[in-house]
C-alpha cells in the first residue's frame, strides 16, 4: 500500500516526475544551481520548423497581428511632440482554446502521444488547462486538469470557474480544489495513480511551443513595416510566455527590447484563503511574476525551462484599475473584446508608446478570449461583492485587496518600473540558499550570469554584497 501522506508523496517527487515525463533532469545538472539549459532545450529534439508543423496540425499559430490605430492616436494625444509609437497586438485569442497557451500545450500533447502515454495531467488554474484539454482532445488523449478554484466558503473565483467549464467542455476530468499549494501534492498523487504524462507549464516542451510566437512577430512586423519591432511587451507570471517569446525573437535575429509586465498585487498573500477572492486577476500578477523571476526552480519540475531574467530587459508594473480601463478602451476604440492576460501588457504598452518615438513600434504579444466569469465587468462586480472599493480617480490610489481605481483619462495610465537589479540580487539570494556562495565555481558564475543577463563580474560583486 502506497503511503499517501503529504510528506511521503512529496518525498517520491523525483521518481514520479521521471516516470511522468520520460525525461531525466539529472543529466543536465552541473551543480545545485547550474545546469546546461541550452542542451536541455536542444534535446527536446524539436526544431522550430517541427514545432510550427505540429502546431498547424492542431489549430495553433499563425495568428493575426493587428495595428491598434485608434488607441495609438489616443496615446499620441497624451504624448510629447514626436512621441507615441505604433501599438500592434498579436491576436493569440485566435488559437484553439482562445489563448497563446495552446502553443505551450501543443508539444507536450504531441510528445505524450509519441511516447505512448494514455493521457495528460496538469495543475493549472489558468488558460493553460483549457489549452491542454483542447490539445489532448485533438490527439485522442485523456486529460486531467487540477485547479485551485474556491475558498473555504466554497466561493469560486469567477475567472477560474470559467476555466473549469472550458476544460470540461473539451472533455477533461476537472479536479477543483480549495486554496493551497497542495495542488502539487494532488498532481503527484494523480500522476502516480494514472501513469499520465506531466504536461507541466515549465518543461522544455512547453517553452519550445511558445518560441513560434516570437518568430511570427518578427516575420509579421518585418513583412508589413520593413523593419523590426523596437519593443515587445509580455505579460509575466510564471515566465514561460516571456522566455519562449524572447527565444523565438532571438532565433529570428530580432533584437527588440523585451519588456515584462505584471499587475501589481503587492501585499496580498498567494496562499491565503481570505485573500484568494480579493484579487481581480488570477495570473499575470506580481504574486507569481516576482517569485518566479527571482527563483524559477520553485516549480513542478526539477529544472524550470522558463527563466525570465535570462531574457528580460525591463519590468513594468500596472494597477488592476489601469488594466480594466485599458480593457474597456480596447473594446470601445478597437472593437476587440479580449481578456485580462494580453490587456495587462497592453496597459504597459500605452506607457511605453507614450515614451517612444512616433516611428517606433511596440508589440503586445498576446490576447486571450473573454466572456462570462473572465470579463472585466464580472471581475469588478465580484470585487464589489467582496467588499473592495471600486471608484474612478487617480490610479495611484489602487490598493490591492482594498481599492480599485479606474483612471479618469488615458493620460493617467502611467504604470511604474520595477528595479531589475533588485530582482537580480533577490535571485542570487535564492541561489545562495540552494548552494552556498563559497562553493560557487566558474561554471556556476557563468550560469548565473547568463540566467540574469549580466556578466560574471556583476554576479561576483553582487554575491560578495549578499
Amino acid at each position, binding site marked *: 500500500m502506497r503511503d499517501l*501522506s*503529504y510528506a511521503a508523496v512529496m518525498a517520491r517527487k523525483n521518481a514520479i516526475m521521471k516516470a511522468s515525463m520520460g525525461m531525466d533532469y539529472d543529466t543536465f545538472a552541473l551543480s545545485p544551481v547550474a545546469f546546461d539549459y541550452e542542451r536541455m532545450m536542444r534535446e527536446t529534439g524539436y526544431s522550430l520548423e517541427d514545432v510550427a508543423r505540429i502546431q498547424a496540425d492542431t489549430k495553433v499559430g499563425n495568428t493575426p497581428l493587428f495595428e491598434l490605430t485608434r488607441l495609438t492616436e*489616443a496615446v499620441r*494625444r497624451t504624448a510629447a511632440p514626436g512621441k507615441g509609437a505604433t501599438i500592434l497586438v498579436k491576436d493569440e485569442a485566435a488559437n484553439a482554446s482562445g489563448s497563446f497557451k495552446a502553443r505551450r500545450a501543443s508539444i507536450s500533447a504531441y510528445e505524450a502521444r509519441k511516447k505512448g502515454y494514455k493521457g495528460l495531467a496538469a495543475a493549472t488554474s489558468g488558460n493553460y488547462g483549457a489549452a491542454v484539454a483542447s490539445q489532448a482532445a485533438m490527439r485522442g488523449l*485523456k*486529460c*486531467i486538469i487540477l485547479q485551485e*478554484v*474556491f475558498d*473555504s466558503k466554497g466561493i*469560486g473565483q*469567477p475567472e477560474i*470557474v*470559467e476555466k*473549469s*467549464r472550458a476544460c*470540461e467542455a473539451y*472533455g*477533461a*476530468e*476537472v*479536479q*477543483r*480544489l*480549495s*486554496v*493551497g*499549494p*497542495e495542488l502539487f*501534492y*494532488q498532481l503527484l498523487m494523480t500522476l502516480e495513480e*494514472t501513469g499520465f504524462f506531466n504536461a507541466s507549464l515549465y518543461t522544455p516542451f512547453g517553452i519550445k511551443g511558445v518560441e513560434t510566437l516570437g518568430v511570427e512577430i518578427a516575420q509579421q512586423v518585418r513583412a508589413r513595416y520593413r523593419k523590426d519591432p523596437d519593443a515587445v511587451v509580455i505579460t509575466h507570471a510564471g515566465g514561460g510566455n516571456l522566455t519562449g517569446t524572447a527565444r523565438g525573437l532571438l532565433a529570428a535575429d530580432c533584437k527588440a527590447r523585451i519588456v515584462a509586465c505584471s499587475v501589481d498585487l503587492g501585499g496580498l*498573500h498567494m*496562499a*491565503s*484563503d*481570505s485573500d484568494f477572492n480579493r484579487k481581480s486577476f488570477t495570473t499575470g500578477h506580481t504574486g507569481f511574476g516576482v517569485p518566479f523571476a527571482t527563483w524559477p526552480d520553485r516549480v513542478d519540475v526539477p529544472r524550470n525551462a522558463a527563466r525570465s531574467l535570462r531574457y528580460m530587459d525591463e519590468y513594468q508594473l500596472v494597477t488592476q484599475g489601469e488594466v480594466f*480601463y485599458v480593457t*474597456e*478602451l480596447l*473594446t*470601445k*476604440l478597437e472593437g476587440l473584446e479580449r481578456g485580462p492576460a494580453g490587456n495587462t501588457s497592453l496597459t504597459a504598452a500605452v506607457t511605453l508608446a507614450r515614451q517612444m518615438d512616433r516611428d517606433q513600434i511596440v508589440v503586445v504579444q498576446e490576447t486571450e478570449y473573454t466572456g*462570462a*466569469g473572465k*470579463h*472585466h*465587468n*464580472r*471581475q*469588478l*462586480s*465580484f470585487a*464589489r461583492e467582496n467588499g473592495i472599493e*471600486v471608484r*474612478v480617480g487617480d490610479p495611484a490610489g489602487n490598493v490591492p485587496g482594498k481599492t480599485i481605481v*479606474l483612471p*479618469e*483619462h*488615458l493620460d493617467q495610465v502611467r504604470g511604474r518600473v520595477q528595479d531589475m537589479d533588485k530582482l537580480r540580487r533577490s535571485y542570487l539570494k535564492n541561489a545562495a540558499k540552494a548552494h552556498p556562495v563559497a562553493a560557487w565555481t566558474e561554471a556556476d558564475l557563468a550560469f548565473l550570469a547568463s540566467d540574469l543577463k549580466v556578466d560574471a563580474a556583476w554576479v561576483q560583486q553582487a554575491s560578495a554584497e549578499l
Partner: protein
Amino acid sequence: MIKAGTWVEIERVLLRPDQRAAGLPTDTAATPYLLRLSGFLKADAELGSEVVVTSLIGHEHCGVLRLENPSYAHSFGNTVPELLQIGREV
C-alpha cells in the same frame, strides 16, 4: 434518491488541517484541503452519502454526494456603471 447515471458533484477531504503542508498562512492552515469533482453517479444514492462517480474520462472517484446536476452559473456580473463612461474622454 438520486438515480445511478445522474451527473453529480462530490466533495472529498484530501488533507485535514493537521495533515496540510507546513508554512501555510494561518487562515488557510485552519481549513481542510478539499476536492470537488463532477461525474456520473455509479449507484442510486442520497445527497450527503458516500458515493462513487465516474469522471468524463472514465476514472472512478469517491466522495460525499454534494449536488445533483451541477451547473455553471458564472456570468458577466451586475453592471459596473463606471465602465460605461470610459471611451468618451479620449
